[in-house]
């Protein structure tokens, strides 16, 4: 599915850039129209919009966020923003853990990956927060395994790590009013699943790839 950019999305992106004064650095790769999965740390509602706004507009039009279904379907406004404005791929969080027996877990997990593979299609890119939920910004939580399975299914898609700095101070979890501090966004060198690398090793390496992009310490 190719999607145009919703005017509200452009507006929110401009506002987010203004509030966060974000300075973007492509340290490990250049902006490119090829299919990519951008994966980053997650500490603020601004994370997705800021990362998305940092991409050139022709890439932006084909880049969709992965978001938690339970949260974004909760109110009509959130659903509108997720579905109509940002064309988010809404996935059920914790569905695998809730499964009654291993076979069901396997089936549910496979279904989630199917949805992401379908969203990627032949020309889309995805924005992914593998921690699964917003943290305090001090430490990265362990990555969920979705990114690993997705990478195995679509080895042709580049995995680009990114680090969003200071957004946890601008709009932390649970706050509605932003404080306009300055922030940084760094894109790192693409990684891939190495031959005979197991799931846990890859997830730890992916997490390290994000963490290593941090440029200044947070309080």
């Amino acid at each position, binding site marked *: 599915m190719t999607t145009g950019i919703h005017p509200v999305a452009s507006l929110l992106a401009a506002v987010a850039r203004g509030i966060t*004064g974000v*300075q973007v*650095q492509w340290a490990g790769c250049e902006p490119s129209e090829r299919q990519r999965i951008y994966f980053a740390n997650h500490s603020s509602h601004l994370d997705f919009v800021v990362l998305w706004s940092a991409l050139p507009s022709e890439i932006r039009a084909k880049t969709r966020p992965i978001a938690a279904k339970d949260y974004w379907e909760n109110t009509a406004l959130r659903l509108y923003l997720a579905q109509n404005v940002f064309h988010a791929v809404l996935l059920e969080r914790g569905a695998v853990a809730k499964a009654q027996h291993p076979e069901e877990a396997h089936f549910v997990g496979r279904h989630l990956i199917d949805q992401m593979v379908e969203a990627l299609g032949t020309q889309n890119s995805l924005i992914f927060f593998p921690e699964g939920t917003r943290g*305090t910004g001090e430490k990265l939580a362990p990555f969920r395994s979705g990114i690993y399975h997705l990478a195995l299914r679509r080895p042709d898609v580049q995995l680009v790590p990114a680090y969003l700095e*200071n957004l946890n*101070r601008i709009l*932390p979890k649970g*706050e509605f*009013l*932003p*404080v*306009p*501090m*300055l922030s*940084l966004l760094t894109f790192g060198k693409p990684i891939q699943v190495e031959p005979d690398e197991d799931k846990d090793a890859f997830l730890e390496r992916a997490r390290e790839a994000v963490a290593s992009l941090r440029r*200044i310490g947070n*309080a």
Partner: protein
Amino acid sequence: MMFQALHDAKLVWLCSGVLFLLVVSTLIGHLLKSRRTDANRSTIDNLNARIRAWWKMAAIFALAVLIGKVGALILFALISFLAMREYMTLVPTRRGDHLTLFWSFFVIMPLQYYLIGIQWYGFFAIMIPVLAFVFVPTSIAIAGDTEHFLERAAKIQFGIMVCAYCLSHAPALLLLRIPGFEGHNARLLLYLVIVDQMSDVLQYVWGKLIGKHKIAWRVSPNKTWEGFVGGVASATALGTALWWATPFTPLQSAGMSFTICLLGFAGGLVMSAIKRDIGIKDFGVVIEGHGGILDRIDSLCFAAPIFFHLIRYYFVP
């Protein structure tokens, strides 16, 4: 009234003087560039970059002054905002400070400039040192996080004082009613900014030319006694020579510009000490491309309130 300033011949002379300085320094910059060697290449490139930045700053400032009081207020409110943004980004704050910071940026700072706009001097003078002083620690205490409490409250208070309160005294010069000088206050603002910024520039130039003995090498490796004495003396001479644009006699003008230079130096030194404490070189360097507004105006923050009150005490009946 818009562009009223154009009818003030002496103000136009001041602006022309600045333009002349910019042209001359640009020519010198070009001359040096053609003669640069590997040894001084970075210094000369840095000098030319600074001159280019000065053109932009002077243009923005001139436009704001020409528009009049509202222009100056908007410009300085914007500078306060950007400076406070740099400061608060680099000073460690905690989650419990969030709402207090929101108020600092979106209520306290704009209110300070609004009070100048409606010419409410009494409230302008006490709003931050009295009300915000009490508000900041109270609001942090209500948020409930007591870790480093005093430090956090003090750091936020200091940021609001320097970036909003102190700096707002520059456009507040437009409020003062000096008998026989009505309608010309924009010249005072220009005088303050010219003497203050030229003092910075001349201290840098003298320091580069003959600087040897460091004043406080722990705080700022670039500040030397030679730069300080040469810069303050020449900027004071410049300020004295501009007495015709002010309500001052030449001697008073010398005293005023000397005070501005000394306080400007103090401001630069204090902000350098804060930068060393945080562990950075420039407020603008950590966040590349953001220019370091606070590095540019640190001297003005200390000079503006004292200059304002000296005039208010001696020249406003």
